């Protein structure tokens, strides 16, 4: 009649093993999903390349996203605006033809949002542009991206750190950003 707990532990070993393996499995599965199907880089209706526009041709962000200067939302350029250049420029490229189709049918393009904030967040581009914050601070190096993907984790932590770093007036008051 041993009183040592070691043999008892031995008995539990297989069960313990299974549990451990299962937990490891869960972790692996979770991160596998996050890694291979992040959903931060959706396929857009038109394979629009920011690298070509903002990168190679150095078109300023605010040229197309003109709203960002004066509105809470940066907005995406209207089909009309795109056609403004693309009537001449690169009119023969397949993707641009696709655009032209949209234009001829007066059909809106349903882009998929890459950077999307929860509905209870009040974020105004205007103020941040006015404060001279680079678009890249939150959107990442878009001008280098063929397909836009969410680089920075657009979460409360990001906002707070920046607000604290720059000592924004009442930058940490809930009602500054939450509505």
């Amino acid at each position, binding site marked *: *009649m*041993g*009183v*040592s*707990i070691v*043999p*008892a*532990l031995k*008995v*539990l070993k297989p069960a313990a093993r299974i549990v451990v393996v299962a937990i490891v499995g869960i972790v692996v599965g979770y991160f596998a999903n996050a890694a291979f199907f992040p959903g931060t880089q959706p396929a857009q209706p038109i394979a629009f390349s920011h690298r070509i526009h903002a990168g190679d041709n150095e078109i300023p962000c605010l040229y197309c996203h003109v709203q960002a200067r004066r509105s809470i939302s940066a907005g995406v350029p209207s089909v009309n605006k795109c056609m403004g250049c693309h009537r001449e420029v690169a009119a023969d490229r397949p993707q641009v033809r696709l655009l032209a189709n949209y234009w001829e049918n007066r059909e809106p393009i349903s882009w998929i949002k890459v950077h999307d904030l929860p509905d209870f967040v009040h974020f105004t581009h205007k103020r941040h542009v006015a404060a001279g914050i680079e678009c890249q601070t939150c959107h990442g190096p878009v001008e280098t991206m063929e397909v836009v993907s969410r680089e920075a984790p657009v*979460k*409360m*932590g990001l906002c*707070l750190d920046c607000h604290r770093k720059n000592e924004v007036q009442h930058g*940490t008051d809930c009602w500054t950003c939450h509505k």
Partner: protein
Amino acid sequence: MQTEERQLQFTDIHNDVVRSLVVTGRKYYITLGCAIVLMLACFFFPWFYQLYYGIGAAGMNSPTVWGTYLASFIFWIGLSHSGTLLSCVLHITNSQWRKAMYRSAEAMTLFSLMVAAMMVMVHLGRPWFIHWAVPYPNQMGLWPNFRSPLLFDVMAITTYLTGSSIFIYMGSIPDFAAVRDRTAGWRHHMYVLLSLGWRGTDTEWHRLGWAYTFLAVLIIPLAVSVHSIVSWDFAMSIVPGLHQTIFAPYFVVGAIYSGTAGIVTVMFVLRKYMNFEQYITKLHFDNLGKLLLVLSLLWSYINILELFTGWYSGTSTEYEQLKYKLFGFYAPLYWEMILFCGVAPLLLISNKFRTSFVPMLLLSIAINIGMYTERFLIIATTLSRQYLPESWRVYVPSLVELSIIVGSVAMFVTLFLLFVKIFPSVSIYEVKETMKIPKRKGIPEWQATH
């Protein structure tokens, strides 16, 4: 009962207790099954429905935004005060009669605390964010509100839960060892683990005794503080009828009161269905009866005091609240409470009553019903009579709420049934201490003494 005349032997204790753990009849399984089914059907199903639909599934309204969930919460917290607190006090005062019943009493503490915690989850509007009430570093740079009595609650209860679980576990280590040595198979392994390799050397006994007493002393103030803090959830508001300095003692007394009644109930059950007639005796019921009597008098005193404050304040708010409580919509419940918790316990004056089992059982149950009513009234009668008369509205619990009350009881029973099969529900070694040393041939006096 001639069984009590019979001279108990140490081995009897071992055998009885181990039997209670190992030998399991069909009755037990049936009860356990019923309890589990009831728990699932009456607690978890309605709760999940409520999670899906929203708190609207309950009967609460504006301004009565709290309801039976919180009442149940207080009730279970209250019930938890029976065990550990009582057993600590008695341990320190070194009263012998405690020893047969304290284990199950402490178990009650544990389980009622767990059920209480569940009631909090049920009460919350968005329980999936409960972790925000816990202080931990996070990217939101946010902390819980340390001014909030509710937060005190969270802390007090967790501490109490930890304390009392350690207490009960430590107390039963020698018994685990004892059972370990009398079982085989998986049970043996289990008890090997649980007994942490207890050998029963003098050092071990000494350390156990010391630590045990130490914890006992530690837990008493804790227990008192827990229910004081629960009372602050209410007393710290400025709601007429809740904003009272008497509330902390009121709640503590009420808690011990309902707890003690709870013990009586449980002991009756153990005695009857686990055949512990020899260990749980008239003596215990007698003593607990006396305790109950004292507590009920205290309770009545505080109640009268509460009414007095209301009347004496002379303000319309307090006065209306008082009127409402005594003669308003909930008046029948109020008088039921007075009958069960204030009047009926006076029977305990008679020795005969205290020492007769069934009446004690009925009384204890009555008391706990009364105490639940009290907790319900504390919420219902005050919140529905807030400051602005235009917002007055009566609150009636919904079916979901009622079934969750039933379900919570089922949950408690389930836990307890599992407990009696894992823990020696009567402390083997302490019962032995109460017994006089058996004289046996061949064993010299000095050897038999401890």
